[in-house]
């Protein structure tokens, strides 16, 4: 059971990376982004491209940080994946959502457009890579470490947790210390006043997409390192990240972080009683439960 909780924390840190971006987009751009899961998938596959095609092609040597399953190639691929998805997210905003905002389309229309975008991204990945399950480094034995309390954990999983926490701390410092970060919080607080204050809200929106997309991409790469890559992986994360977002109150970054861990732990612990394929349904049931008991989430007012 303790082992499942530990696995849940690892899964939760990946969910949290998705949920934090989702909750920021939800609050600042103002709609439910159904393409957020595909940002995760996109990040995972961009890293795959860099690790298995781009870097070998330019002759970058393969290496591995034993006992981790990856090496310098992944270290380079990771930020590239985040940057590419960040740019993709901004580009989607410019060619799609911005046009709809200009037409005064409601949030539901924007959400629908994001659903369309999610299929477009997923189909593009399917066209390029097909529907197979892929590993970053196939055929590798990945032994687990024995920790106290009979917890077995792979070194990769410890790395995943640390990487996620590192990114969250970076985000925290960005929001608390930098001018742009404070302006983002201000816009999330009160968009009209931000506009009055002279903050160019379109620029804030672009930053929001970049951060949301980048964090989601990081989550996708980490999931790829932990398990494997599949074009449907992001779609399967969609319900858990929405559940985490709602649990932690929409717009609340720290709520999304905690929500991510709660959902991740609940999903992993449920495998003690249910078939693992029901993980998604577990996240869904928790979400329904919150909607019934406390729809504003744990950190919401009223």
């Amino acid at each position, binding site marked *: 059971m303790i082992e499942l909780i530990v696995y849940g924390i690892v899964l939760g840190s990946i969910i949290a990376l998705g949920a934090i971006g989702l909750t920021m987009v939800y609050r600042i751009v103002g709609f439910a982004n159904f393409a957020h899961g595909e940002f995760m998938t996109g990040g995972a596959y961009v890293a795959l491209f860099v690790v298995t095609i781009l870097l070998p092609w330019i002759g970058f040597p393969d290496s591995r940080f034993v006992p981790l399953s990856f090496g310098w190639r992944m270290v380079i691929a990771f930020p590239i994946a985040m940057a590419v998805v960040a740019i993709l997210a901004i580009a989607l905003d410019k060619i799609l959502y911005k046009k*709809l905002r200009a037409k005064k389309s409601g949030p539901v229309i924007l959400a629908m457009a994001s659903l*369309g975008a999610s299929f477009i991204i997923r189909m593009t990945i399917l066209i390029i890579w097909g529907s197979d399950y892929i590993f970053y480094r196939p055929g590798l034995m990945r032994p687990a470490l024995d920790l106290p309390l009979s917890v077995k954990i792979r070194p990769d999983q410890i790395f995943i947790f640390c990487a996620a926490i590192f990114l969250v701390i970076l985000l925290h410092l960005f929001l608390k210390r930098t001018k742009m970060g404070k302006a983002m919080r201000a816009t999330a607080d009160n968009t009209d006043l931000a506009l009055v204050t002279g903050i160019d809200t379109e620029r804030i929106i672009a930053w929001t997409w970049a951060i949301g997309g980048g964090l989601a991409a990081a989550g996708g790469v980490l999931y790829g390192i932990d398990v494997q890559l599949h074009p449907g992986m992001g779609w399967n994360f969609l319900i858990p990240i929405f559940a985490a977002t709602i649990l932690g109150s929409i717009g609340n970054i720290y709520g999304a972080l905690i929500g991510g861990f709660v959902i991740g732990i609940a999903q992993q612990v449920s495998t003690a009683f249910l078939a693992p394929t029901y993980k998604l349904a577990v996240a869904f049931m928790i979400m329904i439960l919150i909607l019934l008991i406390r729809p504003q989430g744990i950190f919401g007012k009223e």
Partner: protein
Amino acid sequence: MEFSGISSYVVSLAIMAGIYAVFCLGLNIQWGYTGLFNIGIAGFFCIGAYTSAMITTPMPSGIYAQYVHQIFGLNLPFVFGLMGAAIVCGVVALLIGIPTLRLGEDYLAIATLGIAETIRLIFNNEQWLANGPRGLMDMPQPFHSVVSPQNYNYIYLIITVIAMVIIYFAIEKAIRSPWGRVLRAIREDEGSASMSGKDVFNFKMQSLIFGSMVMGIGGALYAHYTKAISPSVFTPLYGTFIIWVMLMAGGSGNNKGAILGAYVIWGIWVGTKFVTDFLPYTLQSRAPYIRFLIIGILLEVILIYRPQGLLGEEKKISKLLD
């Protein structure tokens, strides 16, 4: 011979488009007239198909019982299958509406998405319920013995069209009634509907249930047409997304548009297959993805450049009140 090949192809196309038109009509009640954002159509599709299948097939017996499991098999006529599908979908809609309809529109979207995925997981995993991933087969087809099997699709086309037309007139009647006026008032602005929150909730709930029942009938029509269903059919792509594109293309808030959209988009969908057939052999296996990519882009183009769809919203005026 060539001609009959083509005409049977056209008939099968028309049947599928007709079934999708039923879904579009159901969605139009929810989205077009009430503004409910249901993106879990696949869930109602799935439940409608399975319910009708199990109502109309007998409980497997003898040697089949070892291979086919289903929770019940009533062996009743087709019409009961349609009715059962509608009722069960209505109940599911009620359950999903309770936690979500008081909240913002996007909560319903997330919840319906979740229920659709959960339903698919349940049918996939629970062998005892409806035979797990292998699904159910040999659903009976009405008037099966009237014509030879190769011509049966003509009969089924008529059945589909009749169902579609009945549903069309039922919705038109409902929408032109005072009830329909209230729905549109809710969609436009909940505040000005000058009703209590409880009333708004009730009307939304009725619309959600009504639309979902229609979707259940669509699922049943599908099950008896293909005579074989399995959970892998009811994906977000085939079961939800394409129906949204159809309604948006035809014109939400317009029942004729809903039907037109179903036929146009299904035509484009089938038509793209002819195009992808020209692709080099290596790309052939990815052809469905290319086709769905086109449909996805089509939705974005509609949303940006023609959000009212082909026909646009029809003005509905109640003869009783105006």
